[in-house]
């Protein structure tokens, strides 16, 4: 009995000591919303292990969030004492810009120099890190740092193209000719989720074929009422493509995953969407060779630097947060990102062995180097994502003419521009 009592006492003391030890240990909280199977999810999980090993004296607490969670209640979380020390946050005026302008983030200007991020990232890479006092991107302090990129392109079925004797297009005319050739063979060339992002991304891509620097800067920066000319061209072109059968009118009943399935199952030769599909396509498409071509525009592509690592104002460990950001921006994890099929922002291309990641990183660099990131069409106006989706479907199903479409999206844009 005595022995048992002693053992119990020893165990109890040990447990008490352990819990006291834990209570004294510093806790570093980190959140991100990338799915575990995405390139970012895979690589950041590895980096987190290294980070933990480097700091055995710190309890690193990671929480997997969803994009929707932070999109819907991120502001409230950052405004509370429940915010982590560092988290992934969506970039743009309505998200990172808003919380930065409300004083909920830590100004990272000092860390940019101290950690040497200015030597890794060029000013173009930092455009969506900077927000002014109104929360508009492009100028002001650095409030967050992106460590990856993304862009919208056209995924295409290489086998179907080769069988039809076609090449990936380099001009809009060639693209139309390719679509016509598939149409002649009885195929609907372009799979599209018109009620989802791919609808508005195709629309914006076509608008960018008519957009110059001033238009993009005015549009994204809410600097003037909307000049609807590029959108009118895009809307008319889309209507024309629906009429000619290049896009199915029924796309208005399809979400992105439905349209992606048409492409991955080999039923549609082309699908316009972003680099976030790379990992999934690499793992699911086994029956044919596939590739991407950049939508032929004079300069701008729909895309951006990726989501930002931001440090909440109330973070107790901003130095550790900066160290974490530096780790994910380091050559080792940038290369890992490319090798996982992702789009690193600052990787040495020669060390990336995965052809998908290598190509994506090269294309992103090419777009970024010519300052050709036109960003996403829904960014300038909060809630514009839904407006564009709703009006896209009106356009596709024929309840709106191209002129009415532009008039209606202009009304919402101008209202926000006037009242900002």
């Amino acid at each position, binding site marked *: 009995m005595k022995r048992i009592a002693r053992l119990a006492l020893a165990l109890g003391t040990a447990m008490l000591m352990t819990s006291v030890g834990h209570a004294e240990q510093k806790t570093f909280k980190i959140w991100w919303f990338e799915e575990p199977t995405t390139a970012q999810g895979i690589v950041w999980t590895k980096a987190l292990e290294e980070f933990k090993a480097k700091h055995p004296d710190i309890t690193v607490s990671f929480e997997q969030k969803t994009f929707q969670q932070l999109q819907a209640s991120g502001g*409230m979380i950052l405004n509370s004492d429940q915010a982590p020390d560092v988290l992934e946050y969506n970039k743009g005026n309505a998200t990172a810009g808003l919380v930065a302008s409300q004083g909920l983030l830590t100004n990272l200007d000092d860390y940019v120099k101290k950690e040497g991020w200015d030597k890794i990232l060029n000013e173009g890479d930092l455009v969506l890190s900077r927000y002014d006092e109104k929360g508009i991107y492009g100028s002001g302090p650095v409030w967050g740092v992106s460590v990856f990129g993304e862009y919208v392109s056209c995924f295409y079925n290489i086998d179907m193209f080769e069988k039809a004797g076609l090449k990936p297009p380099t001009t809009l005319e060639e693209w139309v000719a390719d679509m016509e050739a598939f149409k002649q063979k009885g195929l609907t060339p372009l799979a599209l989720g018109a009620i989802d992002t791919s609808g508005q991304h195709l629309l914006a891509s076509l608008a960018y074929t008519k957009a110059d620097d001033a238009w993009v800067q005015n549009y994204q920066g809410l600097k003037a009422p909307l000049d609807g000319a590029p959108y009118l061209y895009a809307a008319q072109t889309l209507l024309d493509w629906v009429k000619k059968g290049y896009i199915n009118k*029924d*796309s208005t*009943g399809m*979400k992105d995953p*439905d349209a992606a399935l048409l492409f991955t199952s080999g039923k549609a030769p082309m699908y316009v969407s972003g680099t976030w599909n790379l990992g999934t396509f690499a793992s699911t498409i086994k029956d044919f060779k596939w590739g991407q071509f950049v939508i032929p525009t004079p300069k701008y592509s729909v895309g951006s630097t990726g989501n930002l690592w931001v440090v909440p104002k109330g973070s107790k460990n901003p130095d550790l947060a900066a160290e974490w950001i530096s780790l994910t921006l380091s050559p080792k994890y940038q290369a890992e990102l490319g090798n996982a099929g992702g789009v690193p922002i600052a990787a040495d291309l020669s060390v990336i062995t995965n052809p998908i990641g290598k190509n994506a990183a090269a294309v992103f660099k090419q777009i970024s180097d010519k300052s050709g990131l036109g960003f996403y069409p829904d960014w300038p106006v909060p809630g514009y994502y839904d407006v564009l989706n*709703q009006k896209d479907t*009106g356009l596709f199903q024929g309840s709106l003419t191209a002129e009415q479409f532009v008039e209606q999206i202009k009304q919402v844009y101008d209202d926000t521009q006037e009242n900002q």
Partner: protein
Amino acid sequence: MAISSQRSSDGSRSYSLYLIPGTIGFILIVLIPQLANLGLSFTAWKGVGTPRPVGLQNYHRLLTDDQFWGSMYHTLLFIVSMTVIPVCIGLVLAALLFDYVRDQFGEWVSSFFRAGFYLPQILPVTVAGVLWGWILNPVGVINITLKAIGLDNLAQNWIGDATFALAAVSLVIVWIQVGYCLVVFMAGLSRIDPSLYEAAELDGANWWSRFVTITIPLLAPEIFVVVLTTLIAALKVFAPIFVITAGGPDNATLVPSYLTYYHFFTTQRVGYAAAIAVVQTTLTIALAVIFLRFQSQQESKE
């Protein structure tokens, strides 16, 4: 007399203790958020920072907002699919299962159908919504089936075409709601004296006559409850719209709850979203009060 009054006062005091948890819950979960929401409806607020008072501006904007009025119109249509149709179908099905199927095929078959009709109520709405999204999309099960049996002309863009979207979502809602109505009505039927039916049958009343003269009048209390609860559900319908159509195509299935969500979380017009919610809540309470008064009047007449 004095003693009885004393007793009754003691009794109500001791009973009132049981009301305390519910009252606290109501104040914390319903009343305070509602008052906060009412307060917010008179402000402009982005969800963070300090709300800016704007008086009645949000309500003024509501009056001229086509999206809002469109969503209110859709609510009227959803009252048909969430209340009128499920109550009618539920009544007929309940009477059939109770009065015919049970007698002809036994209790087990009747229970099997009752459970089957109730199943959509158990399924989370989001799961049901995603499933129906797959079924109704242009390359979904319905169109594939129609094409496979040679009825290509009937295949439609169910949720992507404004002509069909509202009807398609309504179909899903009817499917969800019928089970609830059916189960309540069947429970109500079990308390009706079977001798009434037997007597009517002996008098030569057919099934329809029995249904109209016995079932419906005697089920009035249950019908009132079901109509009231489904009516409230129709006024605040959100989940099926959110999952299946997100209010589209081109706002063809937009409802006030979705509009509130949209402005609250995406346009950052929290004050405006609060104003929509206030109008919606007021309408719901007003309808519920009118309905309950009507019910109590009917009861007092009886």
